[in-house]
């Protein structure tokens, strides 16, 4: 069958090897061009003026003085960004987030922007813009925002399906589960119920958002931008600015990290609008402070988790009540938390109730397995408490209750072959589990789940007359996917890896591709490339048939070579891809293969982590002694980069667990908008991170690929929480477990005796 995505368990030659990445030399020599590395003749410098208030009415914006400054070429406010989407709420939210419309909704919300001949002039112009604010009451805490009488962030918001007349900060309440939890809890021998909190974190990519926008008076434009999804950026920018989609060409630069934060437009429509007004190219690069204040962090949360179990270890009922703040605009983050909370387990009675809540903070964006780490912190901490209460080993307890093929997931679907048990078995047998622990040291483990996504994908393979291969993909390479995708093309065509060149095409060259998010890059583009390569092979066989003057059915393709089938053709010499390519100008012209698909069947993935820590009981300082990641990859295309994803995700989770948090003052202003006080892990904070790649094939992909990028950020919060709790003998229920929080917990425990 054509384009059959089913797993076939074929033998591989290239897949699974550790080849050098194609963009390596550019990246180690400084030649690779990122968002801020492009320039255009006559370009202006764009800069954004941001609200210093958490919540304020904008009574007026006076730009007259700034306009008179020599060298200022354009100033825009929301007046220059009229509604072109007919009030379509989700798009209007994006536009309002790019530029405040009458109200500043958070500290850092853009209120105006300038384009000037240089940075000094642009800075001067920003200072000369006078904004008349009327400060309004604000709310930044998720629990406070749900109280009656809390300041209302968005007056139009009603709880979906709720009271149509009542203003509220609760945008949505989602519910998942099955069975009857009341009955389940009634059956339980032990019930543990705890509350947890996690603070807001940022994706913390090292490259700030940057773009170079150029729009002409004819409505045609180009955008060079660091993004995870240039097609999505094109569609959104064009719609928000009233441009034709086809007339906006978006080129994705090399991207210096995204982790979900570059799936969303922030200042790109502003740069395009400035360029359109000035009729000159505009380069707009955010400062680090702007990145923290004005782009998408992930949610802070508050939650209540309740688990009931029999003495034999079987869970009888589980309930999660999750409150996620989405920033100043409605999102689906609480909902995702509700879906993922119990996904690791096979539960007869389970419920998750999730609230999406608005506060005066930046619009939340995806952050690597968005929403799952927080719910996992609550759930996996509680799982340890239940295991303790029934005196059962935490790994055995999880194994007993783990989901398996055929389990009905708490969020609805029934699982196919999955890896949660295999990861737990691997943890059980991991040498780290036997390493001796000293005083003040503790060990913890935890599990995590992520869906993984597929989606719209489109890819082209072009074969040169020398037999080398161009692969064009539309999924942005955020961490080395050009290597894995080149490998897939080489495998499928039967040519050496070194003869394949994979490029990320601009939006004028390929059809729409969904954003690189949901760990979909290698899964979905890999699938499209397999299909495109198979189309190309069909054409290669046809050319061989033509050369030999035999029916195409009598041409077999094996290891990159066309062989005639049957004894009657024994005098014909096999033709390699290179041979056929050389003849192509005379056999019908260029040889290519295309594929457009919606890649379904992204297999879910699971990870289990082990963490050993040492806590200084006098300061509350935590050191990670050992850390091990076990995750199901489906099939590791390039094991180095799979390990890299595991290690990077774990490191982000470690930062989140121990030190990273947005600190807001009473005035609603962000206090730590910089890498000095928003403390992501540094090299000396971490040990080597051990990895175990499991390969439980995804039946929905020809090679068995599952997304690998996200799942391993899910367990660390809980694994470290369990390790720290075991080290100090106090249950930690607030992330990050910063030294002051740990020391306070120890002291409180001591005082209680």
């Amino acid at each position, binding site marked *: 069958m054509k384009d059959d995505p089913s797993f076939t368990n074929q033998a591989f030659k290239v897949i699974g090897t550790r080849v050098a990445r194609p963009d390596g030399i550019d990246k180690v020599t400084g030649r690779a061009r990122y968002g*801020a590395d492009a320039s255009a003749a006559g370009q202006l410098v764009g800069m954004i003026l941001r609200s210093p208030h958490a919540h304020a009415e904008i009574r007026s914006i006076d730009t007259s003085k700034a306009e008179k400054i020599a060298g200022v070429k354009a100033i825009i406010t929301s007046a220059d960004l009229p509604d072109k989407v007919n009030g379509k709420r989700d798009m209007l939210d994006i536009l309002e987030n790019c530029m405040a419309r009458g109200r500043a909704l958070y500290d850092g919300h853009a209120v105006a922007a300038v384009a000037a001949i240089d940075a000094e002039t642009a800075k001067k112009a920003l200072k000369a813009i006078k904004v008349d604010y009327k400060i309004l009451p604000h709310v930044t805490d998720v629990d406070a925002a749900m109280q009656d009488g809390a300041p209302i962030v968005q007056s139009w918001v009603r709880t979906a399906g709720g009271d149509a007349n009542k203003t509220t900060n609760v945008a949505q309440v989602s519910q998942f589960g099955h069975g009857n939890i009341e009955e389940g809890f009634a059956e339980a021998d032990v019930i543990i119920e705890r509350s947890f909190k996690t603070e807001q974190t940022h994706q913390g990519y090292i490259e700030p958002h940057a773009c170079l926008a150029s729009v002409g008076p004819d409505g045609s434009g180009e955008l060079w931008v660091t993004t995870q999804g240039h097609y999505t950026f094109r569609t959104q920018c064009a719609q928000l600015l009233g441009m034709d989609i086809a007339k906006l060409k978006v080129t994705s630069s*090399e991207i210096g990290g995204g982790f979900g934060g570059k799936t969303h437009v922030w200042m790109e429509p502003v740069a395009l609008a400035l360029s359109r007004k000035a009729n000159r190219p505009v380069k707009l690069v955010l400062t680090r402070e702007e990145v923290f204040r004005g782009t998408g962090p992930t949610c802070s949360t508050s939650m209540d988790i309740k688990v009931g179990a029999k003495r034999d270890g079987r869970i009888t009922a589980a309930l999660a009540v999750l409150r996620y703040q989405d920033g100043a605009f409605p999102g689906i983050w609480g909902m995702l938390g509700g879906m993922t909370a119990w996904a690791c387990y096979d539960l007869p009675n389970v419920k998750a109730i999730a609230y999406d809540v608005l506060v005066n903070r930046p619009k939340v964006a995806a952050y690597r397995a968005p929403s799952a780490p927080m719910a996992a912190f609550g759930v996996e901490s509680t799982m340890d408490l239940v295991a303790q209460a029934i005196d059962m080993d935490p790994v055995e307890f999880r194994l007993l209750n783990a989901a398996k093929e055929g389990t009905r997931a708490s969020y609805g679907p029934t699982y196919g072959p999955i890896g949660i048990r295999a990861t737990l078995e691997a943890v059980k047998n991991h040498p780290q589990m036997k390493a001796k622990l000293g005083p003040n040291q503790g060990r913890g483990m935890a599990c995590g789940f992520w869906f993984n996504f597929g989606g719209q994908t489109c890819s082209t393979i072009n074969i040169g007359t020398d037999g080398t291969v161009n692969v064009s993909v539309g999924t942005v390479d955020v961490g080395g996917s050009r290597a894995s995708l080149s490998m897939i093309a080489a495998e499928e065509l039967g040519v050496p890896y070194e003869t394949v060149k994979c490029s990320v095409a601009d939006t004028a060259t390929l059809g729409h591709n969904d954003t690189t998010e949901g760990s979909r890059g290698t899964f979905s583009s890999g699938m499209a490339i397999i299909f495109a390569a198979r189309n190309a092979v069909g054409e290669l066989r046809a050319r061989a048939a033509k050369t030999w003057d035999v029916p195409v059915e009598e041409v077999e393709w094996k290891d990159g070579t066309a062989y005639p089938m049957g004894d009657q053709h024994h005098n014909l010499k096999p033709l390699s891809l290179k041979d056929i390519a050389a003849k192509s100008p005379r056999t019908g012209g260029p040889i290519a293969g295309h594929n457009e698909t919606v890649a379904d069947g992204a297999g879910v993935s699971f990870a289990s982590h082990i963490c050993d820590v040492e806590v200084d009981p006098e300061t509350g300082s935590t050191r990670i002694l050992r850390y091990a990641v076990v995750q199901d990859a489906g099939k590791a295309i390039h094991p180095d980069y799979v390990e890299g994803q595991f290690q*990077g995700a774990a490191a982000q989770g470690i930062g989140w667990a121990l030190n990273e948090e947005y600190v807001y003052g009473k005035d609603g202003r962000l206090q730590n908008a*910089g890498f000095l006080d928003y403390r992501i892990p540094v090299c000396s904070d971490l040990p080597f991170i051990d990895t175990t790649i499991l390969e439980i094939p995804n039946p929905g992909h020809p090679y068995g690929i599952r997304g690998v990028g996200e799942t391993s950020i899910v367990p660390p919060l809980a694994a470290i929480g369990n390790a720290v709790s075991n080290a100090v003998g106090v249950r930690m229920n607030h992330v990050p477990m910063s030294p002051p929080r740990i020391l306070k917990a120890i002291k409180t425990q001591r005082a209680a005796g």
Partner: protein
Amino acid sequence: MSGVHVSTTINGDAVEFVCQPGEVLLDVLRNRVGLTGAKEGCGTGDCGACSVTVDGRLVCACLVLGAEVEGRAVNTVEGMANGNQLHPLQQKFIEHAALQCGICTPGFLVAAKALLDRNSDPTEEQIRYALAGNLCRCTGYDKIVRAVQAAAKDLAVDATKPAAKKKATKKPSKKSA
């Protein structure tokens, strides 16, 4: 405000530029000299993405004024390879998959070279502390530290046979996990 005329050496080449008195070396390199290998990740000396050396000392180019490098020698990632021969660190970073997005890579390479120039056989701990001023958000530092260890080994081998021209090392075959 009038410009400052500066004569300096960048990656061994004599370079002259005019910059504003308050303009940092990073902006000079990127916007006036055309060397965009050094990146701005923070502009406040907290991320190391703009690491370069001035007279052999490792610095953040965002915390040096352009005017300060008059008569000094500046070295950037663009000057690391010797012609078409990658520096062992560059080679090992590729071989060990020590980069994912690559935005921090130039800074790490310059900082790691500064380390190995003064300590040819650092311990893991010394490597980790020497690179603590360089933030990486992708890798968890694991493969970066391993690449630096491998490069140190390579350089030690080079040092024992100074005459021998070293060929680009082939990637060691590693067992799939």
